[in-house]
């Protein structure tokens, strides 16, 4: 088994795109994609390079009913354009936090089919550090630092949700030292949150990730329906 000619990541990325990785290997590789720009790029390169086969296919007009059936599946609520209001307070202090814990409580109002979801992160002492609540109706996401340990002066902590397919989506920076932040998620992000399989927290430079993706994931946890 020799991987001299292309590197292992590129090989795995190719097999990922071909759908050949076992469930376990696929999950491991997706985890790698969370943290590794190299892995993500390798996948996207394969996807792009293998896509050429459509170029010479003649277009085929879909039947009108197809759009109608798509339109029906897009809920009017999701269609509402929600303003992207971000208010973030971010404080820094001298020591670095290594383990994090927070509890996420998503409380739907008047929406019985949406089950409340909880993500629980525990540090060694099971101390909650942030309290985060989200309203699935209005898209409002609130984060409050309860007991957040001090951070490096030049770092922020960023919250991400993990959709069941595709890259992590940022939910913004987490506050520290009893600060609180509130934001309203745009409809697209809210829709993803409803179907997300987990949450993650990453350490970032001040101001958050420059790349649009997590830099160093320090914790992640599945989202559970109660």
């Amino acid at each position: 088994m020799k991987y001299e000619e292309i590197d292992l990541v590129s090989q795995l990325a190719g097999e990922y795109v071909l759908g050949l990785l076992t469930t376990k290997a696929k999950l491991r590789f997706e985890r790698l994609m969370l943290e590794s720009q190299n892995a993500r790029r390798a996948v996207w390169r394969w996807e792009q390079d293998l896509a050429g086969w459509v170029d010479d296919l003649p277009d085929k007009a879909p039947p009108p009913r197809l759009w109608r059936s798509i339109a029906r599946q897009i809920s009017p609520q999701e269609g509402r354009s929600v303003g992207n209001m971000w208010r973030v307070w971010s404080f820094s202090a001298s020591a670095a936090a290594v383990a994090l814990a927070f509890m996420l409580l998503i409380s739907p109002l008047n929406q019985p089919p949406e089950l409340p979801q909880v993500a629980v992160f525990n540090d060694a002492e099971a101390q909650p550090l942030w309290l985060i609540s989200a309203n699935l109706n209005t898209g409002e996401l609130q984060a409050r630092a309860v007991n957040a340990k001090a951070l490096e002066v030049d770092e922020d902590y960023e919250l991400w949700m993990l959709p069941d397919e595709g890259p992590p989506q940022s939910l913004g920076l987490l506050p520290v030292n009893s600060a609180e932040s509130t934001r309203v998620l745009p409809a697209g992000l809210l829709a993803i949150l409803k179907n997300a399989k987990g949450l993650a927290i990453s350490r970032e430079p001040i101001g958050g990730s420059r790349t649009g993706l997590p830099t160093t994931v320090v914790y992640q946890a599945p989202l559970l329906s109660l």
Partner: protein
Amino acid sequence: MVEGDLVRLVARTAQGDQRSFKQLYEHTAPRLYAAASALLSDKHLAEDVVQEAYVQIWRRAADYHSERGQVSTWLLSILRYRAIDALRKLKPSQDLDNIDYENVDQASEPQPYSLALADEDAGRLGDCLHTLAGSQRASITLAYFQGLTHQELSERLATPIGTVKSRIRRGLTRLRECLDQ
């Protein structure tokens, strides 16, 4: 419609703008529908898959960014993964043409992609695929277009799994080298 316009439509779609989403659909669906029809012989299944793909595109528009390539490539990826899921749910006998796989080493190709990758098409991908041994090419294209697993490839090509795996690896290596030139 130029790439910048498509990117704008995707960005507005991510903000919940249904009108932009409809425009995106109108510009891109004919190609995705053509792709789905090529991947799936059943017309109704092709429609279902395109429908699912666009619902996913609506929900995941915020995923797109330019590092993933052109908008059309991103859309096609979504469609292909959906089509593969659909194919995997079918029993193999329902989607196979009568293909003679015994002669794979003599460079006979699995249907229907021999059409897309025929010699006259040229195109970078077609050229590079033709640098592969027939067995490597067959394994890779069957996996890519029909979602066959190692086990299924082994059965389809009457080849031990270990051999299938190494053919895929070598095929990917050679393909990567060719594409990177």
